[in-house]
């Protein structure tokens, strides 16, 4: 047997560790502020959701379903699914999960949409971000947990952080695509009337790329949901943790209930956000005329 020579040795692990240590020692204040910010957003949302009486939550979900899908029974179905989750005794846990998802999605959009815009308007920025997005897509989601842990320790904040990193690419990508597909002739017309680049963005590019951005939001939301179970490994309370505990203790029934709850939640969120995206698309299509 020929052994692999030990002198061919790239100490990547050491370099990464060193880099991380350097970041932590020099930027700990920065990470503290970021962490506090994330926690602030998350706690506000969580407190609000837990404060809402359960019938109010059902009502909101029902109305959202009705409004986005334009069918009363669709709203009823959505509310019914939420009721099932509650009947398993997971109401509070599901609200915590929802809070993590909402906080992650909001922060993803706040960061991702401007990034997508910048990408669409600047070739250099695109050439930097595009390979990063490609790499992120092929990376296993567990990997995101490591830097999250290192920067923020255990708990909710690293969970949200990892979820943001994992869920952000679709909205960046689709914002970029949406803006790029706006016809040059329309932008030119706005220019000819003296619109500056900010006006062109808000008057023409963003409205016309709304359907694409909405698809991005839907995908980002679904990615955030998928990350929930994984994020629970670093200490986020919620449905994900239930699944994890059930697996560890080999409690099949409990695991099934928690797993089903996540699936139901996924269906609710997906139906509502994808219907919103479809609505945008139809609205624009009816204007443009196919």
């Amino acid at each position, binding site marked *: 047997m020929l052994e692999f020579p030990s002198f061919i040795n790239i100490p990547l692990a050491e370099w990464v560790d060193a880099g991380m240590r350097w970041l932590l020692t020099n930027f700990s204040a920065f990470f503290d502020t970021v962490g506090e910010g994330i926690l602030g957003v998350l706690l506000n949302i969580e407190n609000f959701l837990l404060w809402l009486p359960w019938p109010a939550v059902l009502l909101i979900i029902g109305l959202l379903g009705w409004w986005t899908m334009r069918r009363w029974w669709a709203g009823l179905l959505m509310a019914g699914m939420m009721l099932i989750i509650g009947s398993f005794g997971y109401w509070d846990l599901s609200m915590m999960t929802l809070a993590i998802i909402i906080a992650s999605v909001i922060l993803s959009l706040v960061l991702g949409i401007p990034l997508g815009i910048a990408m669409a308007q600047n070739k250099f920025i695109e050439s930097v971000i595009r390979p990063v997005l490609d790499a992120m897509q092929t990376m296993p989601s567990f990997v995101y947990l490591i830097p999250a842990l290192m920067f923020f320790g255990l708990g909710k904040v690293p969970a949200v952080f990892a979820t943001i990193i994992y869920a952000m690419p679709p909205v960046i990508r689709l914002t970029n695509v949406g803006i790029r597909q706006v016809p040059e002739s329309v932008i030119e017309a706005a220019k000819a009337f003296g619109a500056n680049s900010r006006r062109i963005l808000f008057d023409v590019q963003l409205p016309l790329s709304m359907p694409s951005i909405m698809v991005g939001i839907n995908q980002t939301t679904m990615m955030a949901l998928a990350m929930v179970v994984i994020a629970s490994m670093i200490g986020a309370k919620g449905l994900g943790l239930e699944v994890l505990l059930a697996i560890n203790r080999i409690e099949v029934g409990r695991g099934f209930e928690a797993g089903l709850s996540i699936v139901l939640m996924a269906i609710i969120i997906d139906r509502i956000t994808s219907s919103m995206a479809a609505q945008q698309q139809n609205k624009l299509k009816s204007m443009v*005329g196919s």
Partner: protein
Amino acid sequence: MSGNDSINGNKVGQMRPEDIVVEVNNVWKIFGKDPQQVLNSDIKSSSKEEILEKTGCVLAMKDISFKVNRGEVFVIMGLSGSGKSTLIRCILRLIEPTTGSILIHGKDICQFKRRQLDYLRTHTTAMVFQHFGLFPHRTVIDNVAYGLQIRGMSRKKRHARAEEVIKKVGLKGWEKYYPGSLSGGMQQRVGIARALATDPEILLLDEPFGGLDPLIRRQMQDELFDIQAEFKKTILFVTHDLHGATRLGNRIALMRNGEIIQIGTPQELITEPKDEYVRRFVQDAILAKVLTASSIMSQPGVTLYEWHKPDQALQMLAAKEADHAFVVDRSGKFLGLLNAQNLSEQRRGQSVIGAMEKITNTCTPESSVESLFPLAAASKHPIPVVDEDGKLLEQVETSAIFNSMIRRTEEEKGAGVS
């Protein structure tokens, strides 16, 4: 800046510098990877095809220069791909010229900062696009009001103004619709309304009447004509429609493969085409509509004053071997026609007035030859040409009308009569 202005003023010579609104000097536009390299080598003087073959660059504009005066309608014509749209876009810097300067009101807009350029586009110019360029997500009224919105006008005011213009282009009732639900011709009219709404001093029109049916096209042309006549707008106007061009245009620039081949009045282009291309291009023009009386009029044979005695008149007619004369009053105003035969029958009269035939069928130098046909048919004598005050200037002989038509037909046959 003022120093610059005076230099330009000197160069211009006979035209007053403040009358020149748009001035394009030696502008080139080359699309492709390395336009500068093409520009710096000798290849730039070869043809468009050759440049494309050897360098892969598209020569869209080649050394274009012209000036447009205040209140002028400057028409740009040429076959598809000759660079008309590129040229008109360059004037707003929607396309950056590769080299050359473009002056608007004497200021080189190629040196403008973004802010100045936006100001110019908002306050001085407006454009109609060949392919409409409407905002699909805005209603007709919000499309039309866009220029005013950029100017910061309140919603109520700009909608009121937009409604006015929408009515003018015949789209009343469509304000709340989206462009997608309008036909091509209607969309084109939205584009026209959007440009007119800001009441710009300079209008850039890229085939504004392209998709319109003849009836509406005529209507839009009339509208444009009125606006131009009333507000003395400066208009740069790309069109394929030669008749429209001759109707509206003061001067026509004819382009081929990125070059301006000839600039001139419609008449000049038709009567003195610079080469075969120009001649072929304008051969469709109905000559009678384009030619005016001024190009075929001649000196009247005998002109008499109203106080001439019949005897004197007969002598004068005999001296010139003429059978008729025009009669004018002491200020030179045209009164009527005197026939030699009538005169000899009434030779005892006090003055020539008694034997004179009153004629109301006069024309002006600007009358089209077409409008002379019925006049010529109604009388066997020449048609008097008068100015706005009725003063006799010259005459048009019936034979001249026919000759102007015949000469052209012979040219087409290749007889080569000039």
